[in-house]
């Protein structure tokens, strides 16, 4: 996990503000830990959230049938995931759907979402891919 200098500065300023002159090392540690939690990351260990943004591209395709989007969006809303954009095409019996979603405010991380969607895909007998947006940005935007 990389933390920008600006973020470190902010955390330091917040610690000074809260603690004033009577700070002990323990108190500093507590405030810093809290700030890191607010940033959505812990300084130690790896969290799925340390990817640059929470924007994910969800792609799904398969044979069209009622309830596909309902099932997928239900899973997303249960996980408090925001849908930023959605587009779909239907060709004969075959459908393709692409969704841009944001998981930054979700209690679930990318891995958990992938597991949930794998279950959805199995129940609906369709394909669902969950990939971080960066991949598409790198490949298709200069």
């Amino acid at each position, binding site marked *: 996990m990389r933390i920008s200098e600006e973020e470190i500065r902010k955390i330091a300023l917040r610690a000074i503000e809260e603690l004033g002159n009577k700070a002990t090392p323990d108190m500093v540690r507590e405030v810093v830990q809290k700030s890191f939690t607010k940033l959505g990351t812990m300084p130690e260990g*790896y969290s*799925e959230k340390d990817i640059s943004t929470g924007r994910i591209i969800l792609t799904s395709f398969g044979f069209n049938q009622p309830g596909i989007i309902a099932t997928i969006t239900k899973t997303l809303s249960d996980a408090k995931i925001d849908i930023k954009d959605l587009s779909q095409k239907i060709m004969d019996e075959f459908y393709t759907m*692409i969704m*841009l979603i944001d998981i930054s405010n979700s209690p679930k991380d*990318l891995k958990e979402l992938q597991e949930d969607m794998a279950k959805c895909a199995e129940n609906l007998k369709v394909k669902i891919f969950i990939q971080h947006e*960066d991949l*598409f940005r*790198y490949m*298709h935007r200069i």
Partner: protein
Amino acid sequence: MAYEFEEVLETIRMTEIEHFDIRTVTLGISLRDCVDRNLEITKQKIYDKIIKYGKYHVEYAKQVEAEYGVSIANKRVAVTPISIPFDNYKMEDFIEIAKILDKAAEDIGIDYIGGFAALVQKGFTNGEREMIKAIPYALSQTKRVCANVNVASTKAGINMDAINIMSEVILSLAEKTKDEGSIGCAKLVVYCNVPEDNPFIAGAFHGISEPEVVLNVGISGPGVVFDAVKEAGRCDLNTLAEKIKKTAFKITRAGELIGNKVAEKHGIPFGIVDVSLAPTPAEGDSIGDILKAMGVEDVGAPGTTAALAMLNDCVKKAGLMASSSVGGLSGAFIPISEDRAMINAVAKGHLSIEKLEAMTAVCSVGLDMIAVAGDTPATTIAGIIADECAIGMINDKATAVRIIPIYGKKVGEVYDYGGLLGEAPVMPVSKLSSENFVLRGGKIPAPTRSLTN
């Protein structure tokens, strides 16, 4: 939508159908601080250092794979050419070092580790002689260790003494691993102009100008380029070149992203993207198929070299545009056993070693994964290596020979290694003798860089 429908689907198609993957994320680790007078302490230092940096290598790569939905086929490690830090050791000691490298590789969960290497284009140190002598034992007694020896360069010329020694080493290694189709030779590369940051096993090592630890990435994607060429249909060559470049650009960008992310997780610098088209024996993952889609009837037909030259150049140009840190071998690999279409071309008698040699003048590496009869004389192997080195030396490019004289096999027979190494048809080699030339020994002097006619 921030992305066009087609753009998203194109990416999904590449990763899901066209076998686009990151071929390798290779962790380069310097072992220059691991030397001690006591061999046991040296071994412990080597082991500790590889574990320290490599412990989470596979884990991190898997996390990135999941985030981006791009599979990373291989996770590997390359170390400093071991002849350099451990120059005061004897042959037996080098075998012990190979064994500890093997153990460290096994313990961090990787299949191959590169760097049992020496750079002897200008001459040998005592340690290098001992290390090269150790190769047949080291590679036959370990599973994961890969070796390479650089015997020529444009600046130094060709060290024919080294080539003669290496051809004996190859035959000895073939004999020592005869029960498994002389598989040891698949782990040994003889180079001219070796790049120091190549992430691709078996030729990978952590060059002497590299930092303490670094992460390099090798991309792949013959399947993606093959489909692009097919889709282009009957257009002229300029249009085709554009099409290939666009595709190669996209896969390089993905490679750079993945490399950066894995390096970020390690907290180490990102080195280079090796923009290579590396085939596998899987259906639709073949360079030979691309050449055929470009229009030659089969690999080996007149025009094959030109088609390959264009393909190679397009990949390089697109790669350079897509990433600021392109390095390694960067180009199209043309191994025989690892490429379905190449295997078929050899089996049908369409592709000979001689034509393949011409193709290596314009591809990224050289004579790669070619099987020859087990009774091929050492001097003939030396002649083949010398020819390949001459191409590399004169054209200022990396060339390599990974030749497998399969013990007990004759021309026309096939040995199936399985997995990524594929199946190797035994190719015919000229019966004419090279003996009186190669056994002169000494060196072919470095070439002139002017009067380039």
